């Protein structure tokens, strides 16, 4: 049981490892799929020729993201032998409608099952057939079987009701969700909280819901673009280093990298972090009102080609960035050379380190 506790203590890390391997599938699949729809010129699935093929390439990327997510969650827990049982179980689950949650559970379950299977003592002559035969076969049978004949059904039901809830959300609830997404994505600029919001977005895309991704695409780029804009509007309030960082932040915002805002937040967290959070929430709300949709699990101006509601998208980013820039500059006093900004030390908590020897 001690083993199980150790594995579950690191659940977040295992899930994030899976997400980390899955992201290129979602991005490649989503963008190619959306591009193929875009190039048909009308709002619909391409019917023939290369565009139809491109569409299927995109769909292939999307389809694979579920087994890959599960496979690498399993990998994180129990290394290579866990990949096959996890991936196969997740695929089976997806066919039943279990989707993203099915993948998470398949990954965790496969990791745990394989972890224990690896502990079975076998005579040396048998050792080589364990990872190639015994573990994949038994592991897959157990986990995929559990999915097919047990938990798959309930997970699918949960997913279906969540999807229905998201699809049927009234405009006021979407705005509330947009605000929450904006706040979370700006709060730690690519850190753990941001990643939870991001995982939620990927889940909605896997269920064929694309407005949340549209909202998120604005939320991730407002902090860096907003801070870059702030340095341009009021250069005297920023050091030379920060002004350089502002240019880099604008670029990073365009390609959807929220981390561009980190240097500013590190230097002056009490004024920067609330400003980027409010700005991101504002931009996200605007995107929700415009009904922006996005099939790629990424944000920033770089995904503009695959956005529907492009004008609304750009306006939303502009609104969010402007709110951030005006708010942070209003809060900041003019930078005077020689005076230390002591708010940094008092605002950040002491970091706890434990040493493993």
């Amino acid at each position: 049981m001690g083993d199980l506790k150790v594995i579950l203590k690191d659940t977040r890390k295992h899930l994030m490892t899976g997400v980390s391997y899955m992201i290129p599938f979602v991005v490649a699949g989503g963008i190619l799929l959306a591009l193929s729809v875009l190039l048909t010129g009308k709002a619909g699935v391409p019917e023939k020729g290369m565009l139809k093929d491109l569409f299927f390439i995109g769909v292939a990327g999307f389809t694979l993201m579920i087994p890959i997510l599960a496979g690498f969650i399993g990998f994180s827990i129990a290394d290579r032998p866990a990949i096959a049982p996890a991936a196969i179980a997740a695929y089976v689950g997806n066919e039943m409608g279990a989707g993203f949650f099915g993948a998470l559970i398949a990954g965790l379950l496969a990791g745990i099952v394989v972890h224990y299977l690896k502990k079975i003592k076998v005579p040396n002559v048998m050792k080589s057939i364990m990872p190639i035969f015994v573990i994949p076969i038994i592991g897959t049978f157990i986990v995929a079987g559990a999915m097919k004949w047990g938990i798959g059904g309930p997970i699918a039901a949960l997913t279906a009701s969540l999807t229905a809830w998201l699809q049927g959300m009234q405009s006021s609830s979407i705005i509330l969700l947009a605000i929450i997404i904006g706040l979370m994505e700006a709060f730690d600029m690519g850190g753990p909280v941001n990643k939870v919001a991001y995982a939620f977005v990927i889940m909605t895309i896997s269920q064929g819901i694309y407005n949340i991704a549209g909202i998120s695409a604005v939320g991730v780029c407002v902090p860096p673009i907003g801070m870059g804009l702030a340095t341009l509007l009021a250069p005297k309030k920023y050091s030379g280093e920060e002004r350089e960082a502002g240019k880099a932040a604008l670029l990073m915002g365009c390609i959807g990298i929220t981390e561009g805002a980190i240097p500013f937040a590190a230097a002056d967290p009490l004024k920067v972090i609330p400003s980027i959070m409010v700005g991101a929430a504002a931009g996200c709300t605007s995107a929700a009102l415009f009904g922006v949709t996005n099939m790629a699990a990424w944000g920033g101006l770089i995904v503009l080609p695959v956005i529907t509601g492009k004008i609304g998208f750009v306006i939303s980013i502009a609104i969010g960035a402007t709110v951030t820039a005006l708010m942070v500059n209003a809060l900041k006093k003019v930078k005077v050379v020689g005076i230390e900004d002591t708010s940094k030390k008092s605002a950040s908590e002491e970091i706890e380190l434990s040493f493993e020897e």
Partner: protein
Amino acid sequence: MKIVAVTACPSGVAHTYMSAEALERAAKAKGITIKVETQGSIGIENRLTAEEIMEADMVILTKDIGIKEEERFNGKKIVRVGVSDAVKKADQIIEKIEAHLNSKK
């Protein structure tokens, strides 16, 4: 004092490299030798050699996603940090490591 580190974050494009840079800067400011391997979405870069790992007094590993080939560090002194913390509080981390290692002498 020699430190080695491995940084890795979920999207593998930003925090991975920012935390590497922050740790390098913080260590250099104190005259501590450091080498940081990054495991971004492009793969392993600046890979740590077996010699460098052997000579290291402390290993810093980020804990947000699984570190590849973690077996290389079996038996070493390890400290795990969040990748976000490594970016924002690199100085504190290096300070605490220095204090811990000095107290053990």
